[in-house]
């Protein structure tokens, strides 16, 4: 079930990041940001639903998107550590988004060529959204990095602190490699180079210093070993489904 595991990773990344963003509803630093954040949260949620639905069908045990989202405990979630990190200040929220969006854009682009037709279709449907996400978060990183002294400092700090969570997506394990072998997923090296090039371009424009590419990187999320943050996120998200088992909403 490597493909099932791979789909869970895709779905969980989108679901958990969407959940983090939706914590900010009505609390953004400007009305336009409120709208944009909710919009990105909504896009990612839509993508999560497509990935999880497909994962459930492939598994063939009758689990739909809600069963997968609401009835798994933390160790069964397969998102990377980056997306479960708390919102922090808005520079953290944005930098987490920019690091994710950059990888996501190149990944989704490559997945449109996946040998799995359904994956290619979902990627095709998501491409316009992730293109917009990347443009938005890159643009904001440039404006904040090259804004005031304060915004530069906040943005640089956010980049430095989140950096150690950026390597996990390129750290392929047997699941990822199996998907590469059958042409379902793109190889890590290609994505990583694209990611580094784009981050480097944007950081250059933003007058930010890029942390070293060979820095120590955290891992474990894809295998279900998360940070302490995920359990709280799930306890909140899953409450109603857990408290009222079997109810229709």
């Amino acid at each position, binding site marked *: 079930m490597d493909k099932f595991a791979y789909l869970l990773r895709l779905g969980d990344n989108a679901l958990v990041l969407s959940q983090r963003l*939706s914590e900010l509803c*009505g609390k953004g630093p400007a*009305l336009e*940001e409120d709208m944009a954040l*909710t919009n990105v949260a909504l896009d990612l949620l839509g993508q999560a639903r497509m990935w999880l639905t497909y994962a459930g069908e492939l598994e063939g045990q009758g689990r739909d998107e809600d069963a997968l989202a*609401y009835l798994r405990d933390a160790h069964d979630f397969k998102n990377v550590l980056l997306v479960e990190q708390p919102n922090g200040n808005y520079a953290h929220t944005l930098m987490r988004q920019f690091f994710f969006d950059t990888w996501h854009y190149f990944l989704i682009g490559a997945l449109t060529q996946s040998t799995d037709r359904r994956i290619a279709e979902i990627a095709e449907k998501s491409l316009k959204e992730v293109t917009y996400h990347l443009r938005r978060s890159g643009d904001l990183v440039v404006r904040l990095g090259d804004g*005031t002294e304060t*915004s530069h400092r906040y943005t640089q700090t956010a980049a430095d602190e989140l950096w150690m969570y950026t390597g996990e997506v390129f750290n392929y394990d047997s699941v990822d490699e199996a998907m590469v072998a059958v042409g379902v997923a793109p190889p890590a090296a290609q994505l990583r180079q694209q990611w580094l090039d784009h981050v480097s371009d944007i950081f250059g424009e933003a007058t930010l210093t890029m942390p070293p590419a060979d820095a120590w990187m955290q891992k474990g999320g894809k295998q279900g070993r998360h940070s302490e943050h995920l359990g709280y996120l799930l306890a909140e998200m899953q409450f109603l489904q857990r408290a009222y088992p079997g109810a229709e*909403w």
Partner: protein
Amino acid sequence: MSEEERLFQERIDAGVKIEAKDWMPEAYRKTLIRQISQHAHSEIVGQLPEGNWVTRAPTLKRKSILLAKIQDEAGHGLYLYSAAETLGVSRDELLAALHSGKAKYSSIFNYPTLSWADMGAIGWLVDGSAIINQIPLCRCSYGPYSRAMIRVCKEESFHARQGYDIMMSLAKGTPEQKAMAQDALNRWWWPSLMMFGPSDAESVNSAQSTQWRIKLFSNDELRQRMVDQTVPQAEYLGLTIPDPDLKWNAETGHYEFGEIDWAEFHAVLKGNGPCNRERLRTRVKAWEDGEWFREALVAHAEKHAGKKANTKAAA
């Protein structure tokens, strides 16, 4: 009445829309700014009671619908601030008045959302009441406001339907879900009726606003419309309106309903609602935490403009 005022009133009486560039009495401008900005603030603050359940929505589909609704509300805030800005006041000034507590927002948002059923009740009752209030305003005398209302009402009617749909699922659900729905109706019913404001006898400034066509029906008329529309919907859901005095009057063709607790209304208005302090604080904190962000965007734009100008000068 001055000649200008007479001509202004004639245009209004003839159903001509007043536009931003037109002459208007200062009191008309002020009343509109107050009314539109209060509406805009309500959209913004109104994101919070729903935001309180978005992270706990019970299915991904419901979460998606709720997120879209909250996004619409931010959008309504934007249109409405823009409409107010045509009257010569900036969004920042309006927000400053909100944050200082000088400007009001709808008191209904000072009640807490305590269960998922509240997402249904808010859509059904609160958005329902808002629409009844706003539909006449689509025909109000001030052009930018009337056009904003048309856009807002279209989306609000969606929201009200989605709210009713949540109530329907709960009312048809398990006994716990039905109890949740009834509890939400119990808590939101009276505050929703209060949304229409004091009874006509108590209402100040109504006459002038009516003459200016920025108030087209009285508070009590609109409230009656809400009751008449909602009671059969509650019956269809199998829920009980929490009003022992409620009864159908076949002669008038309207429902009669019990006395509203105006002491509660005034207490909440005065700041003593369960959530007044938290709602305002959340908004103020978001604003203050975001100051460095907004300043950075301005600084970047200025640098950028400066660079462009330099490039031109060098060329």
